Structure formats: structure tokens, C-alpha cells
């Protein structure tokens, strides 16, 4: 562990991890098939937008990456996904195979994968700082977390994470006192405090107004660019996906129907993904005509 974890004031992140899906199927307990034979490779440091109608399987896809949704068959690899195994051992951290990951090993993977939720998922009655420190729980001994006796290093890291999303002034406010946009940035800071190699975002702006949505998306984009963290973000809005993603993955009924550069996706591709013509509801800022 010590090789991949950094301590002290000069807190650094680890390099981004790659993600590989190989013939992944997800069948929910009720028999509904959430993902069908998904195969794709996300390179370390990529920023990927996943689009699709509601119910297409976007949440299912990202939630398999940290094991919140177990896969039924196939394999997901998180870590070194370059062909022919690790090129030079020094480069990357651990590599995980999701199909057989349970218990402590699964928690270790989760500690390397941050997640941002649509509804922020903050503990509302405690401070912003305590919420960000949740990202450090994996590295905190149980007795410390029970007493709330956080390490000074972890508090420093949490503060830095809050500074990065420019909300450090609110560190000691209660999460419930923040606006929606501020809460989502606290949630992003929480993932940053994990020093993650991957950040998953499940419709992070669906509960926000348009200007705030752009702030949050830019935060994610900068984190990806500055820190080299791999970012996979589910988006309902096509203009956001095209604007902030480098690559776009289109899902329909649990299948990948598009995978290519986000900039190349034109209206017909999107209509193909959605299986219908686009409407004003599909974009955040303007009618579909603006897409062209």
C-alpha cells in the first residue's frame, strides 16, 4: 500500500487508472437486464461522457465500476489496462478485477474510485469538512473514525480539496446551509480527498440550474486536466456531453450504440442513440439547433 499512498503536506494524487469492460452483462435480481455485452476500454486520464435516455443503463454502467452494482458475467478491470500487462511496474498502482472482488479488496478499489451523485449525498447535519473527510475513511482506523479524531494530514488534505473547488470558506458550515451547486462541489471535494484514480459522476448536474451546472462541469473538467484523474460522467444533456467530454459513449437499452470522440457526434448520431428526434428537453442551454 505504501507505494501508492502519499502522506504529508505535499499531497499528490495518483495517476489516473484505466477501465476495461469485457463482455459485461448485468442482470438485476428481478431478471431485468441492465447491461448487455458491454465491451470498451477507457484509457487512464480520459474524460468520458456517457449519454442515453433515462433507463438506458447509464447509472448501471458507472455503478459497476466501483462494484455498487455487481456484474453478472464478463469482467471489468480497473487499473493497468494496457495490452500485455504492466509496461513498467513503477508507473501505476494496483489493478483490480471486479468479477471476484469482495470485502476488503472491494473497499480498497472503492477508495481509489471517487463517486459524485445526482443528489449530492451529503450528511446534511454535519459540517462540510466532516463530509469531505468521509473521503478519508478508508485510510482511517476504525477507532479514529468512531471518535471523529481525524489525522491532521487528512484534515489538511480535505482543506486542499475544498480549496480546489473554491468553497473552503464554508468548511465549518453545516452541509444543509449550502445551495445545491455548493453541495455538489463539496461532494466533488469529498471524492478528491480520496486521492482517486477515477472519478465517476452519475448525472452530477441533473439537480442544478444551468449556470451552476457549468461551474460543476468545469470543476470536473479541470480536475481531469490538472490531476490526470480518469473521469466518467453520466449526462442527460447532450450539449454538456459534447462540450465537456473528450469521448462519448451512447447507451440504449443496456447496449453501447455509440463510442467515439464527443466532438464528432452530430444530431443524427444523437438521434440514433436516443432512438427518436431530439427535443429542447435534451439540452441544457438552447434548442437542439444549437448543436450544429
Amino acid at each position, binding site marked *: 500500500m505504501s507505494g501508492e499512498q502519499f502522506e504529508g503536506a505535499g499531497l499528490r494524487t495518483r495517476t489516473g487508472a484505466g477501465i476495461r469492460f469485457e463482455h459485461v452483462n448485468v442482470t438485476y435480481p428481478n431478471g431485468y437486464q441492465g447491461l448487455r455485452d458491454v465491451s470498451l476500454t477507457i484509457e487512464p486520464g480520459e474524460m468520458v461522457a456517457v449519454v442515453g435516455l433515462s433507463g438506458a443503463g447509464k447509472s448501471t454502467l458507472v455503478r459497476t465500476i*466501483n462494484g*455498487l452494482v455487481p456484474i453478472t458475467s464478463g469482467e471489468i478491470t480497473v487499473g493497468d489496462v494496457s495490452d500485455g500487462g504492466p509496461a513498467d511496474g513503477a508507473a501505476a498502482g494496483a489493478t483490480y478485477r471486479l468479477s471476484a472482488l469482495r470485502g476488503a479488496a472491494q*473497499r*480498497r*478499489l*472503492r*477508495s*481509489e*474510485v*471517487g*463517486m459524485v*451523485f445526482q*443528489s*449530492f*449525498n*451529503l*450528511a*446534511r*447535519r*454535519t459540517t462540510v469538512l*466532516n*463530509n469531505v*473527510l*468521509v*473521503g478519508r*475513511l*478508508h485510510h*482511517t482506523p*476504525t477507532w479514529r*473514525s*468512531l471518535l*471523529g479524531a481525524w489525522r491532521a494530514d487528512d484534515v489538511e488534505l480535505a482543506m486542499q480539496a475544498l480549496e480546489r473547488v473554491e468553497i473552503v470558506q464554508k468548511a465549518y458550515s453545516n452541509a444543509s446551509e449550502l445551495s445545491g451547486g455548493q453541495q455538489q462541489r463539496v*461532494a466533488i471535494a*469529498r*471524492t478528491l480527498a*480520496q486521492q482517486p484514480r477515477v472519478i465517476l459522476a452519475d448525472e452530477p448536474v441533473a439537480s442544478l440550474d444551468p449556470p451552476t451546472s457549468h461551474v460543476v462541469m468545469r470543476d470536473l473538467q479541470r480536475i481531469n486536466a490538472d490531476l490526470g484523474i480518469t473521469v466518467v460522467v453520466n449526462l442527460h444533456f447532450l450539449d454538456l456531453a459534447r462540450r465537456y467530454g473528450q469521448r462519448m459513449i451512447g447507451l440504449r437499452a443496456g447496449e453501447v450504440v455509440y463510442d467515439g470522440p464527443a466532438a464528432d457526434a452530430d444530431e443524427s448520431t444523437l438521434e440514433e442513440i436516443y432512438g427518436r428526434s431530439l427535443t429542447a428537453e435534451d439540452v441544457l442551454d438552447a434548442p437542439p439547433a444549437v448543436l450544429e
Partner: protein
Amino acid sequence: MSAVAAPGASAARLPGAGARPSRPRRWPARVVVLAVLVAITAWSWVAVDVDLAVIAHNFSNAQNTLVQLFQPDYSFFGETLQPLLETIQMAVIGTAVGCAVSLPLSFLASRATNPNGPLLGFVRTVMNVVRSIPDLLYASIFVTVVGTGALSGVLSLFLFNLGIMVKLISEALDGVDRGGQEAALASGATWLQADRAAMLPEVAPQYVSQTIYVLELNIRASTVIGLVGAGGLGMLIDRVRTFYQYHYLSLVILEILVLVLLLELLSSAVRKRLVR
């Protein structure tokens, strides 16, 4: 054909008016319910053996008692202080220990914080049993097992508190928004860590408020569990009563009244501030 039916013109109906609904027949059900209630009450009347004559007779023989009861002897106050203090001490200890122990148990007893089904079922069942045994019964048993005195009182209050607190707090946990917990689990925390970091803060205000409520209940309870020997004012009540010292008895009861009312005032003031 006139448009508006005049009183008395019963045959006249508005054109286009459909059939009138027939009056719903609710009365059979009501009669049955009423009959059952009357039957139960009659049965209970017979079972408790209502006999007003005997009561009246005893009552008229109790002139002396009544006079004493209405004339509390304040000179006895000094002797009540020690039991009064013991009552408060028992309540404070019982509340402190009971509420402390009930916190982890509440987390084990809520579906939201305990993913282990069998353990959840076990804890809930045990707590249901603990809750359905009255405090004075605990006290009677402990007095026989560990002897008379405050220890029996504290132990019975402790169990009494566990029952109430675990129910209230685990229900509060069931209703808490679980987003923070999901996020903590997704970041690699254990369930214990996630519950502590994300669920505990959400129920903390209710926990404090219920603790104060339980303290109030405990003061009330600890005044009476002494009747079976578990320390405090109750033991004093039992003593003065067996010696027919009713003017002392009325003083003790007066003290209980004042104590309970004071605490009720305090508790409702504090709880009102907590629940913002």
C-alpha cells in the same frame, strides 16, 4: 315542468338528474362494533367486581386518613432529602448508561444501518421483549436477585431506557436520508464507518431530545420503583405508609409532583430549542 323543485313537490326532478345514490348502509357495521365494545365493557365491569358500597364504606372509615393527607407535615422535609437525592441520582445514572448503551443497539436495530438480516431480527426481537416488561417488574426481580437499594433501581431503569431509546432512535434512523451513507460506502468505508460518519450526525438532534425525554420518564419512574424496594422516594413512601404516617406520605407525594412538573417544564423548554 318547473326547474327548481319546490318543497313538497317531491315528484318533481330536475331534467337530466341521474338516479340518486341510495344511502350507504353503514349502520350494521357500527351496531356490531358498538355491541362488541359494550360487551367488553360489561365483562370488565363484572371482572373487576364493581362494588360501590364497599368503597363508600371504606371511604367513610378513612376520615382520619384523609385529614392527614390534606395536612402535609413539612417538618418531615429534612428526612426526605436523602431519598429525594437518591431518586435523582438513580434517574441520572439510569439515563446516562441506558442512553449510551442504546446508541450502538439502535444502529443494530435499524434496517438502514445494519445490513445483516439475522442480526437485525435478533436485536429487534430482544428489544421488543425488553420493552414489554414494565419497570416495576424489573425492579421487583432485581430486588430479589441483588437486594434492596439503588442498584436494583438503576438496573431496572437501565433496561426500561434501553427498550424506549432503541425503539425511538432506530425508527429515526429508518427515516433518515441515506445518501451520505451511500457515498461513504462508495468511497471504500466499512458499514461501521459509514454509519458513524453519515448516519449518526443525522439522528444526533433527535438522540439528544429523546435522552432528555427519557430523563423525564426516569425521574417519574424512579420515584415509584422504590415501592418494591429499589431505592429512592418510593421506599420512603412504602415505609411511611406501613406506619400509617399519612401526613408524611402527602409531603412525599407533593415533592414528587413538584419534581416531575419542574423537570417537565425544563425538558419541554430544552427540547423545543433542539428541534429547530
